[in-house]
């Protein structure tokens, strides 16, 4: 892998990600830079909808690598995550050999458990890419699996290799770029984290969120985008069960654009709040009075920001 293609400084990472529509803060960019440079997995933890998965997708595009994605779920096992033997083909092979009549047991056993009969699943694909270029391996929502799979990952993350009992260890010629995400529905074991670089992905500040909204929602009015961001930022300061993430802000902005709104008003907010808040308690907490108050604050904030620029 030509490492010269990788960005050579933190600034270069910031610029590269921005070119592909990802506005990372400097701390995240530093972690990404180090992950690339030190060839270590990057462990991203944070609330849902703050752009953890997105970074892997953007990295793949920016570095022109393929993206191999492993979505985790409870009970995920090696057969669906790493490799599986192609049993029907193996069975046919055995029958054919028997039909030919010259059965060498030893040879047959080694024959049917050779690479020809191996079905590659995401992790093995990432270690042995078809095009020879190490891909970006996204292990998404690791907190959804159980501990045994975590333990299995240790070998993959530390050595970039998997061991298949019938074949031996398969090691990556050049290590993939590994991004692991977690929503923290449970604590991931320290042994995994120790092998990774850790970064807590936080909600973006107003300035960065504004940049994201403007880039990702084409056709959004300049003033509306400011108001939307000011409103969401204020919501996050409130005592909610689930604060809205960037994904929600974008959804909401898109909804408002679809409704042809140029500016926020309390009724529209009440009608579209479902794009922003996903728990009934939270929606109930935003009473018409509070909504009106938040809208008024967001509007003044947007106004002053515009004037300051003029």
């Amino acid at each position, binding site marked *: 892998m030509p490492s010269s293609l990788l960005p050579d400084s*933190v600034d270069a990472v910031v610029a590269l990600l921005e070119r592909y529509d990802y506005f990372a803060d400097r701390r995240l960019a*530093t972690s990404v830079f180090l992950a690339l440079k030190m060839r270590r997995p990057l462990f991203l933890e944070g609330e849902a909808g703050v752009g953890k998965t997105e970074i892997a997708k953007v990295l793949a595009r920016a570095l022109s690598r393929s993206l191999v994605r492993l979505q985790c779920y409870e009970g995920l096992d090696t057969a669906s995550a790493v490799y599986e033997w192609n049993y029907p083909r193996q069975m046919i092979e055995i029958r054919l050999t028997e039909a030919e009549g010259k059965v060498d047991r030893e040879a047959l056993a080694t024959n049917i458990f050779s690479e020809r009969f191996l079905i590659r699943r995401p992790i093995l694909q990432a270690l042995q890419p078809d095009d020879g270029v190490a891909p970006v391996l996204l292990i998404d929502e690791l907190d959804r699996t159980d501990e045994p799979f975590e333990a299995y990952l240790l070998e993959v993350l530390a050595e970039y290799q998997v061991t298949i009992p019938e074949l031996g260890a398969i090691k990556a010629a050049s290590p993939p770029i590994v991004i692991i995400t977690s929503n923290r529905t449970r604590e991931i074991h*320290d042994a995994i984290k120790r092998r990774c670089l850790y970064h807590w992905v936080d909600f973006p500040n107003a300035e960065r969120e504004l940049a994201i909204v403007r880039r990702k929602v084409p056709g959004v009015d300049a003033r509306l985008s400011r108001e939307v961001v000011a409103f969401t930022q204020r919501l996050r300061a409130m005592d909610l069960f689930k604060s809205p993430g960037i994904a929600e802000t974008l959804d909401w902005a898109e909804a408002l654009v679809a409704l042809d709104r140029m500016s926020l008003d309390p009724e529209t907010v009440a009608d579209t709040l479902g794009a922003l808040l996903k728990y009934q308690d939270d929606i109930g907490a935003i009473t018409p009075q509070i909504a009106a108050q938040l809208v008024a604050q967001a509007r003044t904030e947007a106004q002053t920001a515009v004037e300051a620029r003029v």
Partner: protein
Amino acid sequence: MAERQLFGRAHLAENILHFARVLRKAGLPVGPAKVIAALEAVEAVGVDKREDFRAALESVLIERHEQQVLFDQAFELFWRNPHLLERMLQLLLPKIYGRVPPAEAEAPLPSRLAEAMAPAPRAPSIEAQEQEVDLDATLTFSSREVLQTKDFETMTVAELAQVKLMIARLRLPLPELPTRRTRPAERGTTVDLRATLRAMASARGAVVPLAWRRRRSRRPPLVVLCDISGSMDRYARMLLFFLHAITNDRDRVHTLLFGTRLTNITRHLRQRDVDVATARVSAAVSDWAGGTRIGACLAEFNRRWSRRLLGQGAIVLLITDGLDSDVGDGLSLEMERLGKSCRRLIWLNPLLRYEHFEARPAGIRAMLPYVDEFLPVHNLESLTQLTAALTSTSARHATRGRVNAERFAA
């Protein structure tokens, strides 16, 4: 920049080493491998920008979001003046240690010594367990019988010590739940193709018996919410021993105490030694035997912890007498949420020891409708009963529990 003048390369390495040691002393798990990684990271990023330098150290040395605050403080102090922080730590340390001895002295040693001297084998084999039971019967049969029905509240110190020992031996057989994983089995539900084919390959065309696999089962996580307010004080201490026993018996147990505020004591209970563990817990909890704010504490649990702890079909044990000092609408709302976000909600209430117990207090009435099972927990017998309740696994039992709870509420 100031850092640049302060140290050359060798100096920088030394300082990072120092910094790592400071973090370790402050309780962060920073091993030698991490120090090396930190050096590598700093080398990659450079020391031109303080912000980058900090982010580099951070991404290597931190493992959890909670460690951020500690790291930030240490970073600010250390990279201004390395020696200042160490002096401060030294000043702090004696105080921290100073807390432990009195707690240890308080713990009744005799019972533990006795346990240590009676060589009850702890191996989990069936034979060994039988032996243990025999030993119990001969040595403590009489006193055990008395103790089993005696209230925790009316016991002498010596009796308490003995109960503590018994509780330590209590095992909690939680129902096992089927997982999506399988294991080889004599008579299973799915064919193990891998094993079958391996057998076929070496069978030379002879008929090969199928190899089977069946689902593995596993105990669900257990979350214990235990009330330690004034009215619960005596039980709560007893229950702490019980909680310590189950925490060390199985994995995925989380324990939180609440009175006026909520404290997670899981890490403290992981201490193998029961006295060290309880001493740590006493030091960590600040609202022993105070008032109760059940509603507020449950609200905090629902908001801060439920998504992190109740993820994989957890069972919740709620241990409280339900006597809340401020019952509002909040309590029943929070109970409803708690009940809906866990697999089963079991309420252990010491007040149930009174035969004519009625769900009069407003707090209890607010909580009852959302409980799957409602059990007493005032003496050893009730703990054994708890064990039985936990063994009943099916959803049918859960509904029956709900009906039972409704009967009480009526």
